[in-house]
């Protein structure tokens, strides 16, 4: 009793300092917390299939696959950043100069070649996810996934411009349109072309390098389905760990299927 009292008194005296035991306990707690965070980030390194299973709580909206199930296929090695798709998109959908519906990411390629200017390009557009994070966060349900074809659309009159969907989107595929005071994004040209009977979006039509293909995944006899399901291909999606189940697939394949040669 006496000892505890003196202990207490001691603690009161050393109010600024922390006892060794206390410090150890605190450090242990910290390690546990960082461990938990490490576990979380390690999860994102595992392949897409198991990462997907972690997100089974979130449900696929509508019936999957949709009829028709629109999807896009991009051969990433074929893109040459001519930006014809950007021009065609802006023209078709009245995209303002500050906005974008499709972007082309680029970076310098680190290969031991003679030229310093070799780059690689990656077109990124809305992935029309089967589990769209943007739809889940929208407070007014202005953005929604079309029940029949699965395209993520925006109802301009309901959008309040809170930009929650812009932060939720893992692909940074949305921008705020100051004219309509609503968020705008790629809709596979649904409103301007597909609705009116045109079979392809504007970007796919103008691509000179055949880097982009558009089609219906529910049609198992179609050219697009066969192209995507050809054996021996490594199909990639952007950010599989986000669990959004995107509908834009990336393939690495040059014309004729030859691989990048080693520099001489």
């Amino acid at each position: 009793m006496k000892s505890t009292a003196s202990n207490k008194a001691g603690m009161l005296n050393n109010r600024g300092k922390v006892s060794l035991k206390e410090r150890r306990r605190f450090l242990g707690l910290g390690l546990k917390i960082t461990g938990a965070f490490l576990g979380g980030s390690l999860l994102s390194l595992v392949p897409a299939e198991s990462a997907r299973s972690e997100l089974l709580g979130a449900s696929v909206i509508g019936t999957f696959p949709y009829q028709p199930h629109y999807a896009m296929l991009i051969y990433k090695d074929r893109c040459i950043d001519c930006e014809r798709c950007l021009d065609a998109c802006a023209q078709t959908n009245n995209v303002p100069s500050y906005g974008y519906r499709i972007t082309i990411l680029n970076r310098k390629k680190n290969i031991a070649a003679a030229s310093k200017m070799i780059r690689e390009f990656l077109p990124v557009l809305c992935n029309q996810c089967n589990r769209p994070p943007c739809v889940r966060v929208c407070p007014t349900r202005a953005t929604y996934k079309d029940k029949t074809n699965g395209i993520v659309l925006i109802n301009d009159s309901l959008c309040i411009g809170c930009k929650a969907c812009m932060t939720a989107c893992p692909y940074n595929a949305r921008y705020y349109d100051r004219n309509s005071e609503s968020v705008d994004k790629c809709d596979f040209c649904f409103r301007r072309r597909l609705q009116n009977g045109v079979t392809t979006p504007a970007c796919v039509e103008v691509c000179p390098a055949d880097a982009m293909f558009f089609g219906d995944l529910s049609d198992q006899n179609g050219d697009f389905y066969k192209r995507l399901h050809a054996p021996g291909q490594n199909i990639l999606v952007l950010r599989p760990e986000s669990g959004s189940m995107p509908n834009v697939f990336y393939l690495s394949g040059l014309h004729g299927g030859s691989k990048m040669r080693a520099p001489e």
Partner: protein
Amino acid sequence: MKRLTRLFFLFSSLLACLGTAWQAGAQEYGGGPIVFIKPVRAVIFEHRVHLGKNLTCQSCHPEIFAKKAGQVEENDDFTMASFRQGKYCGRCHDGTTAFSVDTDCTWCHIGVQGHKHLEEYELGIK
């Protein structure tokens, strides 16, 4: 003070000499990279990369390419399709002499962003 001015004069003359020598060297192989913006923007050609691989000026000029840089852009058949038939770049880039035009797209196609990068950082702002 006099010494300082003399030093400055010496240094600047040295720099000027070096500059002209560099320019002469560049003139020898066409003066830096050539960027084609037709029919797609942008395709880079560097003399630096091509010379010295059993290639001399006469290998390409004036038979395949006119000596004026960018002249060939005016031709309507300056396209990938005619390269595959062995015209222009396709004369060598056929898969045996040099890599085929059907592969390694980005080795020459630097794109719009690559062109901007080149203008801003590699060539200096005009």
